[in-house]
């Protein structure tokens, strides 16, 4: 026994990243039988990661999960250390000096590219940029999106694609009372978009929409969704996938597609859900004018069907394209990284970090398993990672670690102004106060300088 996890030698753990997986890891550690101190280090001055910057502004209920995180944060042995960036303000070596172990929960913030000619021309964007922009993320604050074209293309058929679609399909009046960033609301007010194309490589049975989000698309006040009825004629392999008892969402979604196929356009905007199309080339002189796509067909056994090109090309005219075709984590200095999967290689959450020698490093959330699952999925994942960490505890170096006092002192030397949870609560109050006269739950600060100024107001 090394005596770690007692009042005399508390287990001190640093968690890098304050999104859902980071907070659930903190919760699991604080609830363990060992005396544990947990510090979450966050790159931005504000916590909650994708709950703040990913969840769509018109889904306020989902943002309520932040209340659960605030409760975790009020635990006496928890600290939030915001405005502290891994690799810039502190290194893995320094974490090893201050803590017994580290858990990396940095997520998957990078968009995968389509890999087609022309995708970098003006008017083509990544969904992460667009989502970050409308949610007021400081990294995307100064991007510009041009909504002057009547037609827009979204590549991908997951829940991010559908969020993007909804934000473009809704009227400004529907968005005005959400916590959407002011600059986004202003730009969307000028939108001339009438037609939204939502493109998927595979068919209606394989599309990964959740039923709830798909249904919501059918209930928008200014937009009618459409599906080509021909795409709902299924071959035998698709039929067997549709009737797979392990996938109850498929027949439900299919019914919704069927209802979309029989709609008539009555509203100002429409959203066309296309299946079996794969983008091949983005064209335009100065900016995007059209996207060339190839029709696909499905090959392979049920459950593992892949889309392959069928030869026939089609073109969709559009002035804006937003891609949401997968996400990848970013490498962290000194930590092995799997470029192909976009994750940190690990065994049950334990990363294979060789330097500093003997420093136990763990991973959780999207940087561990890739960008799958939703907020709650990370709770089970983080509990599993913490179980691995606690099982390893007897092998940790017995020496007491200084924990937050040392790490905060280190950050102060670097002249990085760290933000405590109390500071964040001050920012939070200020954002809510700014939102009040506008009827918004909050008006976010969208620049780091503004956040820091508000934190000590």
């Amino acid at each position: 026994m090394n005596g770690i996890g007692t009042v005399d030698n508390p287990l001190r753990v640093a968690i890098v990243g304050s999104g859902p997986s980071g907070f659930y890891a903190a919760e699991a550690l604080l609830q363990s039988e060992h005396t544990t101190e947990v510090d979450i280090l966050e790159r931005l001055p504000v916590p909650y990661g994708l709950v703040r910057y990913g969840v769509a502004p018109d889904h306020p209920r989902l943002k309520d999960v932040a209340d659960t995180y605030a409760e975790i944060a009020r635990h006496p042995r928890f600290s939030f250390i915001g405005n502290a960036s891994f690799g810039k303000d502190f290194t893995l070596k320094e974490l090893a000096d201050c803590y017994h172990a580290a858990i990396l929960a940095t997520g998957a913030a990078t968009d995968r590219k389509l890999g087609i000619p022309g995708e970098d021309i003006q008017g083509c964007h990544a969904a992460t940029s667009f989502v970050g922009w409308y949610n007021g993320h400081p990294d995307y604050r100064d991007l510009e999106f041009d909504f002057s074209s009547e037609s827009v293309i979204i590549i991908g058929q997951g829940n991010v694609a559908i969020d993007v679609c909804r934000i473009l399909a809704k009227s400004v009046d529907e968005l005005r009372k959400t916590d959407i960033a002011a600059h986004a609301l202003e730009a969307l007010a000028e939108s001339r978009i009438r037609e939204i194309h939502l493109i998927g490589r595979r068919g209606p049975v394989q599309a990964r929409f959740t039923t709830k989000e798909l249904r919501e698309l059918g209930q928008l006040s200014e937009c009618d969704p459409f599906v080509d009825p021909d795409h709902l004629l299924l071959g035998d392999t698709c039929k067997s996938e549709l009737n797979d008892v392990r996938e109850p969402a498929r027949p439900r979604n299919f019914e919704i597609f069927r209802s979309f196929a029989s709609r008539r356009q009555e509203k100002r905007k429409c959203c066309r859900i296309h299946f079996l199309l794969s983008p091949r080339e983005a064209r335009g002189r100065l900016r995007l004018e059209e996207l060339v796509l190839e029709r696909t067909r499905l090959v392979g056994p049920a459950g593992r069907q892949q889309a392959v090109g069928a030869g026939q090309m089609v073109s969709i005219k559009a002035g804006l394209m937003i891609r949401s075709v997968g996400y990848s984590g970013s490498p962290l200095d000194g930590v092995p990284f799997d470029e192909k999967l976009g994750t940190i290689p690990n065994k049950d959450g334990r990363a294979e970090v060789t330097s500093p020698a003997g420093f136990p490093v763990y991973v959780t959330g999207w940087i561990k398993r890739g960008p799958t699952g939703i907020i709650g999925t990370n709770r089970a994942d983080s509990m599993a990672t913490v179980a691995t960490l606690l099982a390893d505890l007897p092998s940790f170096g017995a020496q007491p670690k200084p924990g937050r006092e040392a790490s905060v002192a280190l950050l102060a030397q670097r002249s990085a102004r760290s933000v405590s949870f109390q500071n964040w609560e001050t920012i939070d109050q200020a954002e809510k106060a700014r939102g009040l006269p506008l009827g918004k739950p909050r008006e976010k600060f969208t620049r780091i300088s503004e956040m820091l100024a508000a934190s000590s107001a």
Partner: protein
Amino acid sequence: MPHVVTGNCNGCRFTDCVLTCPVACFHGDDQRMYIDPIACVDCAACVPACPVQAISESADLSKDQLMWVEINAEKSSSTPVIRTKQTPLAGAEERRAALGF
């Protein structure tokens, strides 16, 4: 429309659902689990976690399942929150097989 735990939970109570709930809205007794409709944020993370597909959004319930809306609301107010995985009921695996999962 909150999510509800329906009849398939009876005789199983696998409780994989509680691990995925971001807001601790699962309650339980010796028999089964219930969702607090006020706490539930409708994220649906629990739906694929259940090995016997006991959890549905209210909007997806069939007529003969509608009673579970009220049972979940009522029972969740008088039973404790469950946040960690419990031992499934005796016979849970047999029932799971009988349900076809």
